[in-house]
């Protein structure tokens, strides 16, 4: 079954995203929330792994968490999809398994 990977910590405070991307399957998706959304910034240094992942996986960022941190759509890496809470619920329905990386 495809897995929705949940990452809520900044790539600079935690290895959660790197650990997740190293193992995500081709049919999986990643949802960035809370400080995890910082990984979606174009200006982010060390973003090679997430750029590579964007070519294969759906990568989503939670819009309210982006807005709360002053991150505009234009500042996101190309391919990152913004979703609201309803979209989050839809993802959770679409992906029967979710895996929180802590």
């Amino acid at each position: 079954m495809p897995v929705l990977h949940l990452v809520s910590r900044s790539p600079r405070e935690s290895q959660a995203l790197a650990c997740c991307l190293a193992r995500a399957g081709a049919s999986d998706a990643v949802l960035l929330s809370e400080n995890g959304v910082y990984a979606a910034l174009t200006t982010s240094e060390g973003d090679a792994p997430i750029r590579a992942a964007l070519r294969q996986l759906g990568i989503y960022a939670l819009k309210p968490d982006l807005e709360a941190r002053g991150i505009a759509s234009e500042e996101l890496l190309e391919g990152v999809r913004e979703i609201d809470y309803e979209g989050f619920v839809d993802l959770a329905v679409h992906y029967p398994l979710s895996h929180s990386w802590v």
Partner: protein
Amino acid sequence: MILTAAAFEQPVRLLFLDDGVFQLKRNQKPAAIGLKHIAPIFEALELYDVEELWVEEESLRERGLAAEGLILPVRLIRRHNVAEFVGGQDIVVSC
């Protein structure tokens, strides 16, 4: 959580990744810093029929560990097989 699930006769598999593999390292003496020894908890898993301890080979190797240096016998899995393994479970719980 593991023991609760097992007590209700749910088949449980544990997968150790990244620094999580250090939990299984032999010869830990946490009393030296006033912490509880967790090895007996892992050793008790067998009593609850939790017999599948999976450890990612790459996580071990990156940390200079080997399966022989762990407190319990484990099954090894390669990193590129983790996605399929996780995707094959009914429920995934992280801790």
